[in-house]
């Protein structure tokens, strides 16, 4: 999938119209966002992990959601405060939605989940979860 095709997918899934970033596809179908810059120099790394191409769509990372921000217009699920805490603890959330959605509490983007009509499956990485009860 090239950059144009990724943007097309983002438009279809989340209503994204404009992308002021470059995207590159790396190993394991992982997409990185970056801006071209700087002198000719051997680099170790550039770009922010933006999301992953899955069989059934693009799963955005938490940072991918923030980079898109106001461009996220479709498949956005607003959570209550209690649900936001549960989500960040790694729990699934009950909602009648299908496919990939982005979750939001007030102005906070909470990452991406996948609905099956009953629950939204949690993809918050373990090292980003809240600890405790």
């Amino acid at each position: 999938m090239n950059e144009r095709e990724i943007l097309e997918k983002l438009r279809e899934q989340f209503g994204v119209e404009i992308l002021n970033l470059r995207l590159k596809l790396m190993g394991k179908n992982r997409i990185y966002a970056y801006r071209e810059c700087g002198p000719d120099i051997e680099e170790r790394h550039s770009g922010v992990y933006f999301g992953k191409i899955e069989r059934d769509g693009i799963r955005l990372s938490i940072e991918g959601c923030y980079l898109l921000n106001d461009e996220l217009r479709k498949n956005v699920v607003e959570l209550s405060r209690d649900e936001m805490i549960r989500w960040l603890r790694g729990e699934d959330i009950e909602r009648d939605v299908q496919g990939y959605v982005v979750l939001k509490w007030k102005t906070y983007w909470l990452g991406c989940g996948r609905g099956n009509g009953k629950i939204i499956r949690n993809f918050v990485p373990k090292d980003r979860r809240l600890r405790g009860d």
Partner: protein
Amino acid sequence: MDELKDTNPDFFRKYEDIDDTEEFLHYMMLPLRQSFRVNTLKVGIDDVVERLSEEFELERVPWAKEGYFVYGEEVTNTPEFALGLIFMQEASSMIPAAVLDVQPGMLVLDMAASPGSKTTQMSAYMENRGCIVANDVKYPRINILISNIQKFGSVNVRVTMKDGRYFGRFRDTFDRVLLDAPCSNVGMIRKNYKYLRLWRQRDVEALSRLQKELIMAAYRALKPGGVLVYSTCTLDPEENEEVVDYLLSNTDARLEKIDLPLKSHEPITEFRGKIYTDEVKKCLRIHPQDNNTEGFFVAKVVKDE
């Protein structure tokens, strides 16, 4: 206190010549206050402050509008931390990026960047535009740097792994250069007593030699009209005033006075038989008792057009 003095008598003997006040010793041993920066690439300052104020007492860091001291337990177990909306950073370490005056679109070199707190701070000031070359020499430190850049969401950063002296070949290239130099970490003794145990005068002298080479390379890489900030988290004059004096003696570099709302100590112009130019008085020498932070040293260098 006596027990601590026994840990490293050479350190305490030397520091009698740097700051012999009881206040200095008292604050050197006090635990550090926790502080964070709001990630303005992701969220508005007010949103985060309003939410965190429900659980914590917050106090603004006077020299960084997005910096806050935080009082209370477990700020690293909050939604704001998990989502990368706040970044834990010692308050005095927010000074160098604030002094550097970066702007969106600039080309910036962060010569010794890991763990990336100042890199991400500059990325936020640059609104994720322009370019920061964030360099570090050590592989394990590179991984921490990459991880923090990721969590912050900085897309305008390229990470390199070079000896900082390598950048001298990029003559007159960067609009801004930050050299937060490897140092003897005396300022961090408040965070961890291991830095007191590890301190050795011969390491200070070796670091001073390295810092002089690094600052020369940093100055060479700076564009005419550009700004270089040199900083350390130590208080040994050999690693601070002496390094800046060396740059001023060997180049046409000029110092600018730093104007920030904080207290500081008069920089040292004479130490153990060495005399440094009075120009170094324009630097910031921050002792722990000045603002109840880590000890820190910052110099703002300008290369004329």
